[in-house]
């Protein structure tokens, strides 16, 4: 049995402590130059990971961040916990009523900003497979993944940009938020489907089983589950200790949801995400409790996850310029065109439509989580992973200035 020895524990706690403190410092430095927090965390990962620190001091690097053994297993456990919790908090903010409320423009924008990038991304892999590196038997899964990677948006980065531009509560701001929520929801549903497809490609029965299970679990949680949560939350928030009670119950259900979907052949992230939607939709979840859950996950577990991104691969040796440019070009053109088209059809002016397109172009943390999971299951290679991370960071950085330009 693999067990953490005394020396392993010292390494484990030291590396976690150093990562958390440095991640915070890098995040704060990044904030000073208007970079998303996640950018600072990934930069730290690249510096401390095999790209720089690992190359310069390989012995020290492998001592504190070993590639195998008990410490590595423990670190992997933490990043798995982190990704499940990140999806839970992403789900907390998926409020589909915002799309319903915003009406025609939001529905058009949501739909086209998802479907056009998805279809173009899918078509790029399907018709030009030579541009990408994948095993032929996984063509469908790879094409579905790439379509999803082109379609997903990053709600946290987008809301921050809208807040900085002071257009959060305007019509344009709400349309962007509504579309980002829709893109997140459909993106994660499709990605869960892709992960479930791995290893069973072409088996139609399994495909329909997977689709049925995803929809069945989603509908059950959003109708019956939400009803039970609405009954349970007021009791938890008044009878149990505050805020500890609600924090432990919410996260407890997040992990149970993750365990359930994993056990029925879907990925754990789906259970956590849908559980997040069900809890987040409840009016009984106090804003303060919601904020505490976010604080806990985004400041403790998220930094460890995003720093670990930089540990996964060597960003210099796996930097493939043509691939990076292809991914960047496809991601930006598909998303900006798709979102702007929806906005224009929904009644916005050309400039407003383009501003919506640039707003939704920010991929941020969601794209990186998506890429990381795909790399873990062996769907994509390190070069594609690096290209996706670079695309996510660049699109997040240029969205704000471009939006400002078109709104002015």
């Amino acid at each position, binding site marked *: 049995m693999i067990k953490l020895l005394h020396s392993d524990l010292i390494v484990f706690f030291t590396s976690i402590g150093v990562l958390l403190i440095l991640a915070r410092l890098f995040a704060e430095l990044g904030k000073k130059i208007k970079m998303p927090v996640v950018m600072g965390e990934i930069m730290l990962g690249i510096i401390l990971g095999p790209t720089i620190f690992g190359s310069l001091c390989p012995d020290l690097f492998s001592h504190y961040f070993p590639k195998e053994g008990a410490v590595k297993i423990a670190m992997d456990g933490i990043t798995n916990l982190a990704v499940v919790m990140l999806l839970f908090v992403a789900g907390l903010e998926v409020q589909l009523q915002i799309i319903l409320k915003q*009406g025609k423009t939001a529905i058009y924008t949501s739909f086209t900003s998802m479907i056009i990038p998805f279809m173009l991304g899918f078509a790029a892999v399907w018709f030009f497979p030579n541009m990408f590196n994948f095993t032929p038997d996984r063509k469908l899964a790879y094409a579905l993944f790439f379509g999803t990677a082109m379609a997903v948006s990053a709600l946290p980065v987008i809301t921050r940009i809208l807040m900085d531009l002071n257009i959060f509560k305007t019509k344009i701001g709400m349309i962007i938020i509504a579309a980002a929520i829709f893109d997140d929801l459909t993106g994660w549903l499709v990605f869960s489907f892709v992960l479930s497809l791995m290893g069973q490609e072409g088996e139609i029965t399994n495909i329909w089983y997977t689709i049925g299970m995803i929809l069945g679990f989603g509908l059950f949680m959003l109708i019956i589950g939400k009803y039970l949560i609405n009954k349970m939350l007021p009791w938890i928030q008044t009878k149990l200790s505050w805020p500890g009670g609600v924090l432990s119950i919410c996260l407890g259900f997040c992990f149970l949801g993750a365990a359930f979907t994993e056990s029925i052949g879907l990925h754990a992230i789906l259970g956590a995400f849908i559980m997040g939607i069900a809890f987040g939709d409840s*009016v009984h979840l106090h804003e303060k409790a*919601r904020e505490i859950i976010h604080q806990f996950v985004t400041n403790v577990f998220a930094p460890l996850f995003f720093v670990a991104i930089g540990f996964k691969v060597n960003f210099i040796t796996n930097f493939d310029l043509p691939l990076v440019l292809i991914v960047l070009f496809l991601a930006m053109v598909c998303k900006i065109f798709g979102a702007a088209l929806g906005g224009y059809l929904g009644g916005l002016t050309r400039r407003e439509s383009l501003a919506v397109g640039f707003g939704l172009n920010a991929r941020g943390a969601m794209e990186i989580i998506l890429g990381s999971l795909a790399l873990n299951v062996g769907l994509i290679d390190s070069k594609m992973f690096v290209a996706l991370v670079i695309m996510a960071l660049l699109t997040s950085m240029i969205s704000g200035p471009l939006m400002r330009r078109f709104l002015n």
Partner: protein
Amino acid sequence: MDLSKLKSRPAYPFETIAVAVSFSPRIEAVLSEAKRLSDKLNANLLLMHIGDKTSQKETILENLMKKLAINEHKYRVIWMDGEPVETILKLCKLNIVDLLILGALKKENILKYYLGSVARKISRKAKCSVLLLTEPSIESNQPHKIIVNGVENPKTINTINTALYISKQYKVKEITVVKETHVPALAMTIADESTAPEKSKLRKSLTEEASQQLIEVIKKCEKENIKIKEKIVAGKPGYAISKYSREKKADLLVVNSTDIHLNLLDRIFTHDIEYVLADLPCNVLIVHSRVQEA
């Protein structure tokens, strides 16, 4: 059907008040409320029953009208067969009804909530104002605490003015206009990128902005001698005002009619008026502003 008369009709005064008569145990209480309101507002009363016209029902209704001393020149009864919701809505349009009064349960069971009761379905679709009475009373019970939704919407001025019109008839001296502040994804946005002073500043600016918007709306209202109190509450639209009305033990909550066609999805992903309809905090008046719609 000539709808031109309907489209140009203002939200108030209420000249024709209709009541859906269901011959339930609450029939006398609902009719009493309708009679008192029509007397106060000097409106004509239209009683609508969707179902068979039997001599027994006619007798019950005649006896009730006598008991409640409803002037026979000021009311009409329409008997009609058909699907209740669509027939009532059609009759309201045909008769240019300004206000439809319905008895409604405070809360329905989960199945009925998703399927929709007659009262809820009419509330979602009606092209006239609707008054939902949760606890109709035979005895006089005039409203004292009136709460109005001050949501940012062109219809809101008409809704506040309608609440003021009713308040004037009932000699209510003060009404409260409530604006809800809710910023989606705010918790997520400020979780890792904002310092404590930044958070407080942001929250304060959101409240101030909402308060300023509300003051601007109230300035344009026909207040006369009625005092309007402003209140900003944080929470999801519809739910926050519902909760506030319940806490304040309001007698009447006045809200805008919906701008969109509501369906099952709006009940699954509840928002705005659906929160109010899901659990009525008190009597609810849904004001339909035809002028804005035209």
